[in-house]
Structures are given as C-alpha cells and as structure tokens.
C-alpha cells in the first residue's frame, strides 16, 4: 500500500525529458530526482543543517571536484562487483547471451 500511496515511480523517461533542459537544476539534481531520491527528505535535511550551511556548501563543492573528469571507463568498487556477480547473477545474465536456451525465451 505504501508503494501505491502517491509515490512517483522513478526512472520514467517522461520525467527525465521534462528536467533535461531545465537549467535551474544542476545535472546532479536532475539525476537524483530522476532516480527517485525523495524530495521531501532532502528538504528536511536542508532545514536540519541550517546552522551547518557553510559546512554543507563546502562539502558539496568538494564532492564536485572529487568527481574524476571525462572518464570513459566507469569506476567500480571491485569488491562489490565480485559480490554481485555470484553464480546466480551470472545465470540470470545468460538470457543476454546467444548461448541461452532459446526455447525458454519463446515460452513467455
């Protein structure tokens, strides 16, 4: 019931299309909203951190500088990746390979 209650579904193409060229939003804000980070939560946080405003803006700046520039290879935490790609996950990915059982695909 909670999921039905007024919460927008994240990752809708129309949402991104609406925000894509909205220059009032920074790119990271656009992505955050699109990924469905709760907007109310964000606002609350800002209220809480009113006194730490200076600190907050600094950390944001640091984060922006932090981001490696113009990468073409994504940066992964390889321990996470190794944990993610257990045998089950690899079996689940099999559908994307030609070695997969095609009959199964036809069934659904």
């Amino acid at each position, binding site marked *: 019931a909670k999921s039905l209650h007024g919460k927008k579904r994240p990752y*809708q193409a*129309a949402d991104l299309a609406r925000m894509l060229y909205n220059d009032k939003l920074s790119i990271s804000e656009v992505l955050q909203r699109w990924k469905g980070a709760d907007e109310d939560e964000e606002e609350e946080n800002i209220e809480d951190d009113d006194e730490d405003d200076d600190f907050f803006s600094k950390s944001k700046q640091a984060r922006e500088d932090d981001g490696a520039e*113009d990468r073409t*290879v994504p940066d*992964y935490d390889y321990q996470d990746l190794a944990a993610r790609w257990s045998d089950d996950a690899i079996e689940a*990915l099999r559908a994307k*390979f030609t070695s997969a059982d095609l009959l199964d695909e036809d069934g659904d």
Partner: protein
Amino acid sequence: MSNPNPAFLRFTGHKAFAQRLVLSTLTGRPIHISGIRSSSPTAPGLAPHEISFLRLLEAVTNGSSFQISYTGTTITYHPGLITGAIAGAGAVEGDIIEHNIPSNCTRGISYFLIPLALLAPFSKAHMNVRFSGPGVITSATESGDMSIDSFRLAILPLYGLFGIPPARIDLSIKQRSCPGRGDRKGNGIVELRFASQVRLPKTLHMNRSSGRVKKIGGVAYCSGVSASNNKRMIHAARGVLNALSSDIKIAEAPPGRDDARNNVGIGFGMSLVAESSVPGVIYSADVVAPSEGGVLPEDLGTRCAYQLLEAIDQGGCVSWAAAKTVLTLMAMGSEDVGRLRLSKAVIGTEEVVGLARDLKTFGASSWGLREAEDDEGADVLVSVKGSGVGNVGRKVA
C-alpha cells in the same frame, strides 16, 4: 558563419573540456570557459593534457586561436576550419602530423583519440596524426581512459553505422606503453590515419532490441614485464566468462623486445569487448595495473570480466563508453531524426545529461525521450535530430 564576430558561448568548469572544444570546432561557434579548477588549491587552471589537446586542435585546424588567462582558469577559443593533415601546412614529414605529448600528461591516448576521431570525418583532408613522446600511454589509465584496444575494437567500428567506412580508418600501435612511474612513463607511438571523410554522416536507427552477446574478444597487453602476465589475466577472465559464451578469443600483445631501451612505461592491463548479434552493439571493459604495482594479474582478469558483465547487464544498444561518440555524431550528422536505444543506467549519468545540455547550447535540437515499449522498461529511446554539419561549403572559420 555569416556573422564575423558571433557571441561567445559561455561555459564554466573543467568537465567535458575536450567535448566542448570538439563541439565548438564542429559548429564553428567560439566558446569561453571560465572557472577551470578555480577552487583547486593545488592545481588550478588547465591541466597538461588539456593544453596538449589544445595544441593538437591547433595542429589539425587552420585558423584556430585561443587565449588562456594568466592563471589558466579562463580560456577563449575561436575554432578554425578542420583541415586535417595537409602537406606543408602542419604536416611535417610526408603527410602526417606529429604530435608530441610531454611527460606530465598522465591521461591515456584515448583521451586524445576519441575527440580527434569525432573531428576527422568532417575534415577537409585525411586526418593523419602520429602521437609520440613520454605522455603517450596506450593502455587504460587509472584516471579512467579506455585502452587503445577498446578504442579500436569498440569505438571505431561504430563509425561504420554512420556511413564512415572503418576500413579506411587505420590505427596502428607502433609501440605499446603503460602508465609506469618515475622516468619510465608512457613513450608509446601511435598512428591514426583517418581517411574516410564524408560529405555528411548519416544518422542511425538503433531502436530495436540490443540482441544477445554473440562473442567476446579482447586484448591482454603488457609492456616491460613478463609475457606470462597476459596468460594469467586471460585465464582468470575466462574463468568467469566461459560459463556464458563459447566464443571467447582474447589476443595477447606481448611486451616489446626493446621496451627497456625505448624507456616505455611498465605495466599490464586488459581490454574485453563483447559483440552482440545485432551489428553495432558492442560493450567494452578495461582494467589496468596501477602504476605502483601490487596487483595480481588474476585479479585484474576477473575484474575486467566483471566490468564487462556489468556493461552487458546495463544493456541498451550503445554502452556508456561509446554513448557520447554516437550521440555527438548523430547530432552533428545529416538533418534526419535518428533513434537510439539507451539503457537507463547509461542515460542517467552526468556525462550524457551534460552532453545533452552542451549540444543544446551549441544550437542542436533537443533530444526526445520516451520509453522503449517492448520490454520491462529498462531502456529509453532517444531521438536526436542532426544539425547537418558537413565538411563541404565551410569556407570561413
């Protein structure tokens, strides 16, 4: 073009620097970038690889000019005509432009090759450039550049989809190199001969399913270290991938005989490329040993395999690594609407959204986005209208 002094397009920040310069050169609009690392206490202003890229742009164009402020945090750039290698004008020996990259550049050669390849189809003459010097690193780098093998196997084939025959693009690696450290850094030699200049690249329609992965290829390379590292990386990568595909061919690039004498950077790394049954759908992955060493080749092999699985899992017709190239060519190509199916994980990245905004700033039309209907909503269809930038009739810079 008609207006001799068009207004500068203004940008801030150091991100997507090469991409903005390329768009500026293609569209002929001068740009002004401010705030380049202005908040950095240690290294404000333009980085060495960015200066080197500006020099490269100057060499392959005629009439470009740029002014860099005293602190290097602000630059204005007036693009010129993309001439390529014309004997006597820039090309020093024969028909090739020599570009020397100094040793303080730590980015891989693909940092230069990917933007250069975007300019090359629009050039007047063939784009022949030879990269040499201590800053030429053909391997992947830790700063996130893909290796030259991934560029050759996963980016260059995509040009064929735009009517730019890859058969006339020749990329030869005369000397491989890895980042290395100390005195032994880089020192690779790479020649790009891009001989397929087109009047107008056509757009592409990749709006169908991305197919299934048919085969996996790749290259394991090492320089200055034992060739057994290659075998160990390949063995580990196959340990992960063998379960999924029976068609795995990973080539080995052995260390050069004269690596020590040529002072090339020491290291090893791996590039994996997965091809789908649909032509043009290619996923790639890259890993490299860090320059301080201390990583087992087995670990690198499995990491590379996992990274490839991650890219395959994201799906879409174009992987994140190639998305910027494809979307830029679509936006610059013929005035048609092209459609591209991208994974939500790919389009939901800062780089792709940033490219969308940059293209809009340069006067290209907005992208249309909608859900791809036929599956469970993992992909987005992006419609891009080309802006008809051709390489004929551009007489004035």
